[in-house]
């Protein structure tokens, strides 16, 4: 693949549709507009100049556009912009589990991991919620009906790998599943629907979390990353700000990165 095209976004209303993989660069774009850029204008990356770690985020966009496997193999290092040596020095957590193992085992280990970090107090609730949603979304793919509920039957054995690492500025957490069934259009339309109609309006009976989980995850993070190798694996990660208050973190504009084979 060649170098990714970069487009400066000055106003959402002036944007025209782009070719797949284009990196949009803007400032102070609203979360709903970030999603609109992906759903209506085909952007797969939106990076904000006044967002968190702009240079690293641009590097992530380039890597995901040109070398998807680098992201799928090493999402934490790709997102945090780390060498193997640097990565080894940072506190990290990796838990691989079969999809029918208890979610609480992983969530409890993540809770303990967070307790050992500094600067994460304001984001602990959000991080725990995101871990729960990402893990549930990955694991439910093995079940019929496709949700983790009492009595759901395991029909597609597989694995969910949960991971987290912080560089002191960002906490990155994510999940890799062994299915590769993630559909960006579906996830993005659910998030867009929540922005348009509210969460309650988006809830439909009998559809698990009814897609509001994806909205909750996007709403809580400062950067959202998703990559898919179809039929083989999906990786979904987010970044949360470390060392600043919740109020400051909530004011940061959001980035998004999507890539598939």
């Amino acid at each position: 693949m060649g170098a990714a095209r970069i487009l400066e976004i000055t106003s959402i209303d002036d944007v025209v549709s782009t070719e797949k993989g284009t990196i949009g660069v803007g400032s102070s774009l609203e979360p709903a507009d970030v999603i609109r850029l992906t759903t209506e204008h085909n952007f797969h990356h939106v990076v904000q100049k006044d967002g968190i770690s702009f240079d690293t985020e641009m590097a992530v966009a380039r890597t995901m556009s040109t070398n998807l496997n680098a992201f799928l193999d090493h999402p934490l290092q790709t997102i945090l912009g780390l060498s193997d040596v640097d990565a080894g020095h940072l506190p990290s957590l990796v838990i691989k589990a079969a999809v029918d193992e208890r979610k609480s085992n992983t969530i409890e280990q993540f809770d303990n991991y967070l307790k050992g970090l500094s600067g994460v107090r304001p984001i602990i609730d959000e991080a725990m919620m995101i871990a729960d949603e990402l893990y549930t979304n990955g694991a439910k793919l093995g079940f019929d009906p496709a949700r983790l509920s009492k009595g759901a039957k395991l029909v597609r054995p597989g694995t969910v790998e949960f991971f987290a690492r912080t560089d002191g500025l960002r906490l990155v957490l994510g999940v890799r599943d062994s299915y590769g069934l993630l559909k960006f259009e579906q996830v993005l339309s659910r998030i867009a629907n929540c922005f348009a109609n509210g969460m309650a309006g988006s809830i439909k009976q009998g559809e698990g979390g009814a897609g509001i989980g994806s909205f909750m995850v996007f709403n809580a993070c400062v950067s959202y990353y998703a990559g898919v190798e179809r039929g083989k694996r999906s990786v979904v990660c987010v970044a949360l700000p470390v060392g600043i208050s919740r109020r400051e973190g909530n004011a940061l504009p959001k980035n998004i990165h999507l890539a598939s084979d």
Partner: protein
Amino acid sequence: MSEFKAHETPEGEKLRLAFEGTIDEDVVFPPVDASKFKTIVLDLKNVKSINSVGIREWLNWIRPLAEKSDFVLENCPKAVVFQFNMVEGFLPARSTVSSFYVPFYCEKCDKEDSVLFNVGKEIKAAAGKVEIAFDVKAAAICEDKANAASCEMEMDVTEAKYFQFLKR
């Protein structure tokens, strides 16, 4: 994660329900005969978290009950307050919030604490306006007494968003 539990205490026409644990896909809310109780008081102090499936389960449980009984929600943790503001109907129309937690954070000592705001005392809401009557300095909420003098605890929420539910 902790298993969801509900503790019921009938008090005449009032039913007190104390919830604890995680509200998720495994939650089983207690069946309540709303015709027996004029008011249902929910104590949510020990609710640890709520996920997207839990939100749907909550709505399915509370909607029909709230058509017959008045709800009073007390000791609401921030995970629940977030839902008040984000999910229409999470806080039913015939309900009031008597108290809820507000997070405070000090960047200097990386400490967070939650303070219980009683509606009408630490915070007042009337005619679509919210007035905070809480002095963080005077309250000296920092747990680290050795560093309390230099601690700069601040309310760690965007007030316009976090207190939105009080304006309805």
